[in-house]
């Protein structure tokens, strides 16, 4: 068995990635550091794969950085172990348990005759002396980063029981001087690509459930208009450009339509619209502000923000019968609801005094836990495994992104040199 992991009161782990930065990296590329955390960590030794030094991307460096950044692993230095094991049968477990490792990862990188490379790896339980996983991939060297993330996902899942999200992508908005950019990057901040540039504000990016498109709001035509853009082709389409303001897009789980906020009939109200912009259908009629819709994972209900009770609070609309139920009661400002992927609760932003913080509420118990301590924390976005929440944090100055685990213990800070970053959106698990 893996020993019960140890407790770290103040884990300060700078996750510097051992990668030469590609010269095409945009200025708004993120670097991620863990700024505090604790809770439990699994001590794991990741032995550099045999042959990986012949390639510019060190696979085990990426795998180790992924795992360390999650805050749930402690990397055990494999230096000095000689010879370095590359296969499961080469591992002498005593060597690793003596170093405090509960798990060991070994592997190899072998060139193939067609220019591709075979990557093999084994995950071993050093305490129980068994193999937990073993896979081999034949990939082009250009696929090393995705392959490393995939291996990190397998290790994470085997050792924590939850799906890994290292292979996912994130989207965010960067403001550099007068310019706004919508970027998409790997979950570790690398390979950031600019997909939209505008001289007017961009906001509210949301991923389609299949990860192929992003809907967002742009003010480039002097009013909020919702667009849907394909990531594969870069082509975009107007989703909603009605009289008044068009904003707050939210995809239905099947990707066929979105909930949006329109003011075309007076007031900010919720509507459904097909993903091609057709078939607008009003969801409700109220004299209040109704906005920030977010679908439940089963598609049967929607959380939204409304001031129908006198202050902005979160409500749930059941689509089958139109019933509306208030979900937040404490405080005078609770906004921006997003469901957890298991459908058992939601995160949101609450104002307490003059501060805005990300909180989490459980549907069954209605218990609320405040997760962040910033001055202005906003726009939460939940990782597809429900374990991390990405959000924007500002203190009146330059905005940064930050992440907090859903139990509040692991905290990360994501910064982009020389730009103001906000509006993060975590993409879905790859197919």
């Amino acid at each position: 068995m893996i020993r019960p992991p140890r407790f770290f009161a103040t884990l300060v782990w700078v996750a510097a990635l051992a990668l030469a930065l590609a010269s095409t990296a945009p200025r708004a590329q993120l670097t991620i550091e863990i700024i505090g955390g604790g809770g439990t960590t699994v001590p794991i030794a990741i032995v550099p794969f045999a042959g990986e030094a012949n390639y510019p991307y060190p696979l085990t460096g990426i795998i180790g950085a992924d795992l360390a950044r999650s805050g749930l692993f402690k990397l055990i230095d494999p230096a000095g172990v000689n010879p370095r094991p590359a296969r499961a049968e080469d591992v002498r477990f005593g060597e690793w348990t003596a170093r405090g490792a509960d798990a060991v990862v070994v592997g190899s990188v072998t060139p193939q005759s067609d220019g591709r490379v075979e990557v093999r790896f084994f995950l071993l339980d050093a305490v129980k002396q068994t193999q937990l996983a073993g896979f081999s991939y034949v990939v082009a060297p250009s696929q090393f980063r995705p392959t490393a993330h995939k291996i990190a996902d397998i290790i994470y899942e085997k050792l924590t029981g939850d799906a890994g999200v290292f292979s996912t992508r994130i989207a965010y908005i960067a403001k550099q001087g007068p310019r706004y950019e919508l970027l998409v990057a790997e979950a570790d901040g690398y390979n950031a690509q600019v997909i939209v540039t505008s001289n007017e504000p961009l906001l509210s990016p949301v991923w389609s459930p299949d990860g192929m498109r992003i809907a967002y709001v742009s003010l480039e035509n002097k009013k909020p208009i919702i667009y849907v853009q394909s990531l594969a082709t870069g082509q975009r389409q107007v989703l909603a450009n009605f009289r008044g303001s068009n904003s707050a897009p939210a995809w239905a789980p099947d990707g066929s339509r979105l909930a949006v906020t329109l003011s075309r009939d007076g007031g900010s109200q919720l509507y459904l619209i097909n993903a091609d912009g057709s078939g607008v259908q009003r969801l409700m009629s109220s004299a209040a502000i109704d906005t920030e819709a977010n679908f439940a994972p089963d598609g049967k209900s929607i959380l939204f923000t409304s001031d129908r009770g006198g202050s902005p609070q979160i409500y749930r609309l059941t689509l089958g019968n139109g019933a509306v139920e208030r979900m937040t009661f404490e405080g005078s400002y609770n906004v921006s609801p997003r469901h957890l992927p298991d459908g058992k609760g939601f995160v949101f932003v609450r104002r307490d005094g003059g501060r805005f913080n990300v909180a989490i509420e459980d549907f069954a118990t209605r218990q609320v836990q405040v997760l962040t301590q910033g001055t202005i924390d906003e726009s939460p976005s939940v990782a597809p495994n429900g374990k991390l929440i990405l959000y924007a944090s500002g203190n009146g100055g330059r905005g940064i992104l930050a992440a907090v685990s859903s139990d509040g213990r692991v905290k990360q800070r994501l910064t982009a040199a020389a730009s103001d970053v906000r509006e993060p959106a975590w993409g879905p698990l790859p197919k």
Partner: protein
Amino acid sequence: MHQPSHRNFRFMLWAGFAIAALLAGCQTTQTSDKAPVEERTPSTGATTPGAGTAGTTGSAVTGSATGTQGNPLRDPRNVLSKRSVYFDYDSYAVKDEFKPLIEAHAKYLQTTRTARMTIQGNADERGSREYNIALGQRRAETVKRMMLLYGATDTQIETVSFGKEKPKNPGHDEGAWAENRRDDVVYAGE
């Protein structure tokens, strides 16, 4: 063994950014690069050509009122040159001091039936971006409703919101916030 020091990493980042800055032009998918204000020349096409601006409706620029002379909207002595209505925090109630301004614009619309305006609602930086879009929208609609009571017609006024996205004052104190909780009246063609 496999991780460079944090300082080195920062250096590499900066070096990367420097190169990226040089290459920026070729790597971005430019879908909109409009200069926001430079549309004074009376060309008939309203939108600057540029990829990705298809599908725009509304606010077509009608060629009128080119000079300032004799234009009541530009005459600094005329109340019509005043264009901003300010609000309290989290509020959309119109204060008495702004009623003459709103009435004057409504009367102008009533007597100038071809005139069209957009009321742009804004919010201060506190709170959710999307909720602030809705709050700015309501501020704009509140002023529009008053103008309709004073004689303007519905088709003359579009209400939109910039939320907290386009602050007039970039500061982070009450003085700045008070300036940013605002409706701006913009006539078509301006």
